[in-house]
């Protein structure tokens, strides 16, 4: 099992995490990477915003 992610690998895991449950190993190695990387936490926040935006869009679609 990989003990360290590159940003490319971290991105793969973060995006995959939007649609499936990450394994404990993935979550742990990802967390360790996010602790030492400046770029990937920003990417993660972008994913969060997109998730919130789609939820808002979905809600508004039923209200218009």
């Amino acid at each position, binding site marked *: 099992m990989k003990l360290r992610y590159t940003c490319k690998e971290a991105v793969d895991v973060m995006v995959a995490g939007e649609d499936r449950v990450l394994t404990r190993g993935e979550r742990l190695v990802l967390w360790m990477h996010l602790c030492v990387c400046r770029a990937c936490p920003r990417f993660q926040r972008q994913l969060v915003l997109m998730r919130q935006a789609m939820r808002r869009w979905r809600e508004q*679609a039923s209200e218009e």
Partner: protein
Amino acid sequence: MIDAGFAEQLESQRGNLLRFARLQLRNETWAEDAVSETLLAALERPQSFAGRSQLSTWLVGILKHKIVDQLRRRSREEPLLWELEPDREEVIEFTADGHFAHPPADWGDPEASLREGQFLKVMEACVSELPAQMGRVFLMREWLELESDEICKELAITATNLWVLLHRARLRLRACLEIKWFDHAVP
């Protein structure tokens, strides 16, 4: 005995319903069919609207069912139209050692973006620009809120196809938002 006033109210919703149907189905004919079936179903059962809060909410509910019907029917009748488009383009650039070629920008406070009405319009525009099958799958998950196995069943795609499509959809949407909305963000 059909209430002419009610029929008019329904008709006034057609444009709105078409917008969602187009976005989900990515085909003008199928979208028009889904909307017509929706309005017809609504016209035939006005009593099932009685007491509900909003006409649009009720109609969108019916529309979603009609859309799923369309997706199921069309993917069986016209399988060639559902070929997965080859999508080899690398959406994010990385260096050889796995770093970002262009680090992600700071998109700031999410609430600030979400408060702007224009932001969701841009999000919608970005969704509409996804390749057709990718867009369908993304909205089946994010708007119709179907489970993975349901999506795979309706579109006759494998789970692997599904993960790849959703993965690439999210990367493309992020890239689109970065260009269309956040191009002023702090690098």
